[in-house]
């Protein structure tokens, strides 16, 4: 086994550590703590947060990559160890070979036979045309009619295991937090559902394709889960690229005014006057051309896909900072007129110190709101970009690529609906949780809504 550290893996772990430190620092401020308390005091906030954490957890597990050592072919005795070209992640191991069970082509959820007819030989050696048996579904069944009972029995066993695992996970939390004021029971409910769902999915996938297979015969449920990493990483990394640009330019424009302000305003007006999708598409195409011209840069295919992915994050970040920049500039203009900033000036405090001590902490709420708001927008944008053909590399699983590959399949007779359903389900839950959570965060942190609440 040889660990592989892709650039995006390194970035996401750095990002998570940075976020943890950031939130830990924020805890010191009593006002911020009170606001977070408000977010978590509602059941909805708890549920949304637990779901988001689940997605992030899956994304992190999927970011621990390694290459399996290949066993030496028989007769060959060397000390050198060869590694598989395929990159595996810890998540793949946890899903227990779900991604390795390929069929020939489409098959419906829980189907035993393929979706398309194929020329075969029967026992007498005659050529017939029929639906072939699937290689990895229901092979343990003696009679196809037993499928329903078998599914029920296996599901019950899986769910029992799920409840057991969930109990082990939730029990320590219960011991620690049972007297807390926050509605942790909502979070535990979600944890129970999530753990049961995954146990069920992994164990049933040994015998059936829960969401069927796609055109290439790959398991759809597996692909949908692999899409999580892409969605979560894109949503966070792009914002991470965008934040420093937007914050530094916005704060500088609002604080120094004069020609700095003019330049920054010119920059963001220019940028936002270009239709966003065209700018992104043009940049992605350029990077594509660059990769095509320099094919020797990357040793394995995964690294190339990863480089394209990071480039996409950068492009999305660099092209989308204008809105946040405008907001921060306006807020800084307002703050720098306030008494305490004027007083700091009068005392001769340096610009850098005023910016970092007096202005930045007071625009943090805007950054926070933008961070959670943009996340869901970026996840949705990924699907559209992949559809246009400027998104994620097809070798890297993503919901956009799944939709793109399946969009014409509904017009088949009978319709192939499961690929779209898989992508839709996993994407919808993530975006919905993120949207609900961002609403709560905005309610808690936006001064305008706080004032409104105080009035009424």
């Amino acid at each position, binding site marked *: 086994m040889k660990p592989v550290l892709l650039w995006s893996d390194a970035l996401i772990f750095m990002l998570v550590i940075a976020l943890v430190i950031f939130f830990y620092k924020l805890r010191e401020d009593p006002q911020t703590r009170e606001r977070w308390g408000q977010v978590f005091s509602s059941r909805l906030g708890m549920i949304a947060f637990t779901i988001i954490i689940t997605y992030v957890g899956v994304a992190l597990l999927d970011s621990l990559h390694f290459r399996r050592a290949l066993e030496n072919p028989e007769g060959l005795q060397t000390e050198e160890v060869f590694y598989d070209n395929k990159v595996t992640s810890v998540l793949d191991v946890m899903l227990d070979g779900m991604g390795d069970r390929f069929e020939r082509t489409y098959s419906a959820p829980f189907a035993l036979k393929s979706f398309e007819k194929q020329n075969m030989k029967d026992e007498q050696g005659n050529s017939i045309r029929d639906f072939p048996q699937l290689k990895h579904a229901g092979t343990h069944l003696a009679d196809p009619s037993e499928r329903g009972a078998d599914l029920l029995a296996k599901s019950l066993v899986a769910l029992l295991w799920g409840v057991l695992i969930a109990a082990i996970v939730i029990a320590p939390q219960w011991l620690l937090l049972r007297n807390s004021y926050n509605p942790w029971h909502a979070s535990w409910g979600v944890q129970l559902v999530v753990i049961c769902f995954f146990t069920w999915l992994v164990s049933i996938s040994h015998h059936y394709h829960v969401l069927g297979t796609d055109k290439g015969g790959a398991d759809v449920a597996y692909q949908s889960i692999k899409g999580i990493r892409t969605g979560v990483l894109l949503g966070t990394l792009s914002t991470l690229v965008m934040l420093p640009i937007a914050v530094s330019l916005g704060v500088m424009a609002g604080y120094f005014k004069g020609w700095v302000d003019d330049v920054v305003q010119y920059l963001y007006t220019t940028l936002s006057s*270009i239709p966003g999708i065209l700018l992104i598409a043009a940049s992605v*195409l350029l990077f594509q051309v660059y990769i095509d011209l320099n094919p020797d840069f990357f040793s394995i295919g995964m690294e190339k896909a990863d480089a394209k992915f990071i480039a996409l994050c950068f492009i999305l970040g660099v092209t989308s900072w204008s809105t946040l920049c405008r907001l921060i500039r306006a807020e800084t203009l307002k703050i720098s007129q306030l008494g305490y900033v004027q007083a700091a000036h009068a005392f001769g405090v340096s610009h850098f110190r005023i910016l970092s001590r007096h202005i930045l902490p007071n625009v943090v709420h805007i950054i926070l709101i933008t961070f959670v708001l943009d996340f869901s927008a970026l996840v949705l944008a990924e699907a559209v970009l992949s559809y246009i053909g400027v998104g994620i590399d097809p070798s890297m699983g993503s919901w956009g690529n799944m939709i793109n590959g399946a969009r014409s399949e509904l017009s088949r007779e009978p319709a192939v609906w499961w690929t*779209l359903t898989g992508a839709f389900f996993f994407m919808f839950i993530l975006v919905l949780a993120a949207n609900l959570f961002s609403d709560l965060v905005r309610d808690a942190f936006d001064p305008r809504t706080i004032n409104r609440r105080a009035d009424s």
Partner: protein
Amino acid sequence: MLAYIIRRLIYAIPILIGVNLLTFTLFFVVNSPDDMAVSQLGDKYVTPEAIQKWKVKNGYDKPLFINDEAEGLGAVTETIFFNKSVRLFAFDFGRSESGRDITTDVSTRMWPSLAVALPTFAVGIWVNICVALMVVMFHGTRLDRWAVFVFVALMSISYLFYIIGGQYLVAKTWKLVPVSGFHSEGQIWRFLILPVLVGVVAGIGSGARWYRTLFLEEANQDYVRTARAKGASEISILFRHILPNALIPILTGVVVLIPALFMGSLLIESFFGIPGLGSYMLDAIKSQDFAIVRTMVFIGSILYIIGLILTDISYTWADPRVRLN
């Protein structure tokens, strides 16, 4: 007023130059004229002579930004940047890489885009405001909370699913309208209904939620309390007091979009096979036709700037207190 508009238009020039410079650099940093020639000619026929011939024919045989060999003003004008980008300011879009005249393409493809975008826009605003007003009437009740949840859920669905779902249900299962296509003679509305419907439904979530916040912000103002104290009915408060006052924030968000309607919607047009500017852009992106992308970026930014100016003008109409100077 006129002086204000003229000044704003003059301000637009450096922005447009910036836009051009940006797209131009983006493109040529990575993709040199030689690379373009190779990709256009195909790998088989690549000889230095063929590349040179292609470059001369398409006007890429000059330096990028500054021509040292030319005299005087020619140092700036005899360059690829000047020839390819500055000519856009005279609305001379030239020819696409595949040799078609971009100006004709744009002017014919503009109308199908408008035919879809304009009804979507108008019906969308009307529906969103109606829904939002209804929800605001029930503010504070359980219905309001559920409505907000539904709006958020609607927002969380990818646009692609609205299109795919709409096509599947309305066109394929119920067979009410054709799945896609666009014929200009006769029953053009049959092809327009579904795209417009999908566009409106897809916008309800975010739209109605946004209007609801705007209306609620007004509903908490003192004048509403006064009106209520004087015994005005809820309906009259909603329509006579809240709606007119919410007009300014509504205009801020909406008027900017009007000029951009010409550009159409990339996704709707490509899914429904409508030969508008949106699908034109998409095809250009897919075939890596930079002449078209450059033109569309230019047109798009002009429309955006026009939108900003129109927004300012609309303020004076909505709010007599606003003066432009």
